[in-house]
């Protein structure tokens, strides 16, 4: 199976300088795969995403996108100026116009049905993220790229949002590339986690990464314990790791 996007030996400079933001990064994402990129602030996560999308000039290496690849993108921290009046319905038709049926169907899919006439400025943070996700899901993407999609959401909102992404992925079979701060929540549903800090520090299954010394050096030793705690907490129907593995075959089980 060929990769949706593959990057080899990627080096990118900070705009206007020759100071590398990313150096010699290899990356690939396959159809249907969920890949999470984690890393501290300024580690080049968003830069990597932009380079993969072709929005950044490369100082070295190459990015190959599958021909005809359709990408649904939710950029980091979308802040829309209120100077432009914009309701949800009109927003979904940018830049490609869609009909009313398609608009209401996609809004229903992300749990914000009936908001067509609502101005974007009057949406709550959670609603706005769901509208952004709805827009990204239009035109049947092969790959969803979500750059810190839960910024500004509270804990329940964040958990609900990731649940939704999980659902959407199961329904559509789209691959997901997720950039996130919310390590503990995110990692469990990933096939592969890449820990980035200007270069790829470590990479592998969520379990492998969270016990890797490089990861612990970046995020502190407490991170893994909290991951376990979180998993325990979230599936409050059962306490046993074995059961969790059963419920989440793609999740972060110890022997995955």
């Amino acid at each position: 199976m060929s990769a949706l996007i593959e990057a080899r030996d990627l080096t990118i400079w900070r705009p206007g300088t020759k100071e590398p933001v990313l150096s010699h990064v290899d990356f690939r994402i396959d159809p249907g795969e969920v890949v999470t990129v984690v890393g501290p602030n300024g580690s080049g996560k968003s830069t990597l995403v932009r380079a993969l999308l072709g929005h950044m000039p490369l100082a070295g290496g190459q990015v190959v996108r599958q021909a005809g690849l359709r990408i649904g993108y939710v950029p980091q921290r979308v802040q829309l100026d209120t100077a432009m009046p914009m309701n949800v319905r009109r927003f979904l038709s940018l830049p490609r116009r869609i009909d009313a049926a398609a608009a209401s169907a996609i809004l229903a899919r992300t749990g914000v049905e009936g908001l067509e006439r609502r101005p974007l400025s009057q949406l709550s943070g959670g609603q706005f993220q769901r509208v952004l996700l709805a827009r990204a899901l239009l035109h049947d993407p092969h790959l969803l790229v979500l750059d810190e999609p839960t910024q500004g959401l509270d804990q329940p909102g964040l958990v609900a949002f990731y649940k939704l992404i999980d659902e959407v992925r199961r329904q559509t079979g789209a691959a997901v590339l997720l950039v996130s701060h919310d390590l503990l929540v995110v990692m469990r549903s990933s096939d592969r986690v890449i820990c980035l800090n200007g270069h790829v520090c470590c990479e592998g299954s969520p379990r492998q990464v969270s016990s890797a010394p490089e990861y612990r050096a970046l995020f502190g030793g407490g991170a893994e314990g909290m991951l376990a705690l979180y998993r325990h907490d979230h599936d409050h129907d059962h306490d046993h790791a074995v059961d969790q593995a059963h419920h989440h075959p793609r999740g972060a089980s110890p022997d995955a």
Partner: protein
Amino acid sequence: MIMPWIRRITTRAAPARMLDDFFIRGLLAGLGLAVVAGPLGSFVVWRRMAYFGDATAHAAILGVAISLAFGVSIYLGTLATAMAMAVTVSALVSRGQAMDTMLGVLAHSALAVGLVGVSFVPSARTDLTSFLFGDILTVGRPDLALIWGGAALVLALLVWRWQRLVTATLNEELAMAAGIDPRIERLVLSISLAVVVALSIRVVGSLLISAMLIVPAAAARGLSRTPEAMAAAAALIAAGAVAAGLWFSLRLDTPAGPSIVVAAATFFVLSQVFRRG
């Protein structure tokens, strides 16, 4: 003192052909400008380019000086300098200069150089106020053709690229993900702005062009829920301001350009009262 147009209105026979009437010509020129100032002004408001409009408009005075000195068409001279200003500002901003400071430097330098330049051209000295404040009632048929032709051209450009322009204005990242190059859309708007500034120098003058762009759009903002509705409402309000301002100017013998802007400002105040959100 009797204004020249009073004399003209009394010497012309009433049944003269419509376009012979300076008032009708002025009205048509103003309406032509209003139709394009609405949508373009909306972009100026959305992108917070108000100062950019000023810079381009002030550069136009430099264009007037150059045109008069070299005996070329005023429209050509103002178009050239406005265009040069638009491109310079875009280039400086892409290089990471602080936008508001650069615009402040460029706008006022261009205006000052223009005013100094005009003082070297004796024939222009007397006309200066007409370029600063416009002289809509002296618009001739060739002006009318240029204004409507230019307005139609810019409007066609905006309509053609509408979806891309709106997307790039809303969010550059979302635009790029859809294969839109925001730099091109920015350039389209800068060029359109330069053309409209050059066209409107006769109508409202270079000091009030920005007002024609911004005030109707700002008034339309509170009444609209989509970008298209706002652009259309802005065009209507601008047209209303032109008609009301000219009528006012005729009745009370006030300067036409400023009267139009006063009418637009009145519409803005009304729009704040009937705001929808």
